[in-house]
């Protein structure tokens, strides 16, 4: 199908993009990789009358590794996956990218677009929650920083105001004694997560000092798992305590069922994938 007609702008700076957003207001949509927005426009689930394409803004692309890992919002999955330094600094991100969509989706789709879209089955929201990433935003009123924990507010809904642009995502680097993993059960046709779990662990000697677990695909948005996290924190972080904590994942969460996976099945898979992700994160943390 063909999208409804719209006017097209391709600004070359964030300032110009913000000015256009201010001028067109609700009629306008930002276009990043287009791999969530254009399919929705083809099906006429979205029909913006103005598109503001961010692809000509070079300042929004690229990876910098100075202390933290900073990734421009318009950096494609492919560019993230091919970045050699990133494979060292944050291997979990490079590995997650390989699980997203397919080669062509990764060549166009962007990290910023995926987070701003906040698809309930997308991979990156869970990872940013588990890694405690911060999202950097520019608006006409100035700039602000939003913690990943405050960013995903509902299905396809974020803390971004309509006149704001997500410009960069910062991840704290992983040091000795820290480990993270993201694992998912992909939908066989779309590759989106039927269930995806991101886990982060920080050890203090043999003890688990910090634990963050986030689940995607199962509910209306990616969510942390406080019960399972608390069960693991302060404990020995061995196979037994991981197995026990995993049974608490998904508790207190509204889990969706659909044609492909029932609520019961998803609930079971949340526990299975939590266990696997924690086990992989622990192995990395132990080095």
């Amino acid at each position, binding site marked *: *199908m*063909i*999208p*409804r*007609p*719209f*006017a*097209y702008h*391709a600004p070359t700076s964030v300032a110009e993009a913000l000015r256009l957003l201010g001028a067109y207001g609700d009629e306008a949509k930002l276009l990043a990789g*287009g*791999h969530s927005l*254009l*399919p929705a426009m*083809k*099906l006429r689930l979205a029909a913006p009358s103005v*598109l503001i*394409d961010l*692809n000509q803004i070079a300042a929004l692309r690229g990876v910098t590794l100075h202390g933290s890992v900073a990734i421009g919002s318009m950096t494609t999955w*492919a560019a993230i996956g091919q970045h050699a330094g990133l494979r060292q600094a944050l291997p979990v991100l490079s590995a997650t990218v*390989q699980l997203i*969509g*397919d*080669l*062509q*989706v990764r*060549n*166009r789709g962007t990290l910023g677009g995926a987070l701003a879209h906040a698809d309930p089955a997308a991979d990156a929201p869970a990872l940013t929650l588990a890694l405690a990433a911060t999202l950097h935003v520019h608006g006409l009123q100035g700039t602000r920083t939003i913690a990943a924990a405050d960013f995903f507010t509902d299905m396809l809904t974020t803390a971004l105001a309509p006149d704001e642009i997500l410009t960069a995502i910062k991840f704290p680097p992983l040091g000795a004694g820290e480990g993270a993993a993201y694992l998912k059960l992909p939908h066989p*046709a*779309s*590759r989106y997560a039927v269930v995806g779990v991101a886990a982060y662990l920080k050890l203090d000697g043999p003890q688990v000092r910090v634990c963050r677990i986030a689940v995607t695909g199962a509910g209306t948005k990616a969510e942390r798992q406080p019960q399972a996290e608390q069960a693991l924190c302060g404990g020995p972080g061995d196979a037994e305590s991981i197995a026990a904590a995993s049974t608490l994942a998904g508790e207190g969460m509204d889990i969706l069922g659909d044609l492909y996976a029932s609520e019961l099945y998803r609930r079971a898979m949340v526990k299975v994938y939590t266990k696997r992700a924690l086990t992989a994160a622990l192995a990395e943390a132990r080095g």
Partner: protein
Amino acid sequence: MATLTLTVNGTLSTHTVEPRTLLVHFLREHLNLTGTHIGCDTSQCGACVVHLNGVSVKACTVLAVQCDGATITTIEGLAQNGELHPLQASFRAEHALQCGFCTPGMIMAAADLLQQHPHPSDEAIRHGLQGNLCRCTGYEHIVRAVRSAAATLNPQAKPESL
């Protein structure tokens, strides 16, 4: 309306298009390059894969106006001097197609894969072609054809994984 100047299969030309024109419709309907197919509404099938500035993209999920100044290669531009590209030759030799609907996208995706992984393992071939659906072949012969083209293109290389 928007103006668009781009190079398709080596030929530079300028066009006027509606901003909502998808690259795949532009190629098929404005340039009559109907080798690039449309197999779905959901950006999932890969029948429309072309190369945009050297990398594979789904032409149904890119706007033509986004390709101003770009270089595009479609399946029609792959053969050189009347000689089939090694992937085209190997798809024929290995029976990697039945109805042929998925073939142009499959070959363009495989060509991008072989640029990045000159001698991929079977697992890497399957991973690289995840965005291309085939309703006929069961994929086995497609993987074989890509493996065989890799050997023709890079006879010295050793199999690698992902």
